[in-house]
């Protein structure tokens, strides 16, 4: 299951959605707005997506992940728009029979999401500046 939303992420619901009796392990990853990055202080982030393609890539990542590990269920949710310090921007929950599988599958899914899904963030620094984060500059 994948979802893009502008509402706060109910990560408890995301985790509940993947629990299954045949899965002894659930791993949930939460990405949150972090205060300090390379010594600079963030007060908020803005997330923007290329709609349509973002959902499509997330669905592909779910398929990839399911093809590699015995996933019982998985759910990936990304929030867009303005988020304050500490708010959750992304949640990925994966259930598998065993914990090794669940850790690997969840890690793979969030790594691929951050690599492939067209969603960008703009840092709003405490000094009043703001800038899009485009690694490699």
């Amino acid at each position: 299951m994948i979802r893009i939303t502008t509402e706060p992420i109910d990560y408890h619901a995301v985790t509940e959605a993947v629990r299954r009796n045949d899965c002894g392990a659930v791993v949930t990853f939460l990405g949150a707005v972090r205060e300090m990055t390379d010594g600079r202080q963030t007060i908020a982030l803005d997330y923007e997506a290329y709609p349509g393609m973002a959902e499509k890539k997330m669905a592909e990542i779910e398929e990839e992940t399911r093809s590699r590990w015995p996933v019982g269920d998985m759910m990936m949710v990304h929030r867009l728009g303005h988020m304050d310090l500490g708010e959750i921007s992304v949640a990925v929950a994966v259930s598998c029979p065993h914990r090794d599988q669940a850790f690997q599958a969840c890690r793979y899914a969030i790594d691929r999401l951050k690599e492939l899904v067209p969603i960008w963030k703009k840092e709003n620094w405490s000094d009043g500046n703001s800038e899009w984060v485009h690694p490699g500059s």
Partner: protein
Amino acid sequence: MIVCVRLFARAKDLAGVDSAVLQLPQNATVADVRQVLAADFPGVSGLLARCAVAVDGEFANDAFPISANAEVALLPPVSGGQC
């Protein structure tokens, strides 16, 4: 051939628009999109080489052909690995 290109994040800010109508040659490819974008929006040219291009919602390399009704998008690097 006329094609509409969507711009995101810093590319959008640098261009000052979130979409641009480009005049492309017949049988244009993604390489032509990049060239015309750089010419029409010089402010974007520095970022352009680091951007991906998507055609109809899929990453496309420079040789990928552009059809007249394609949805084209310029995608700056995503923020991978930062949380």
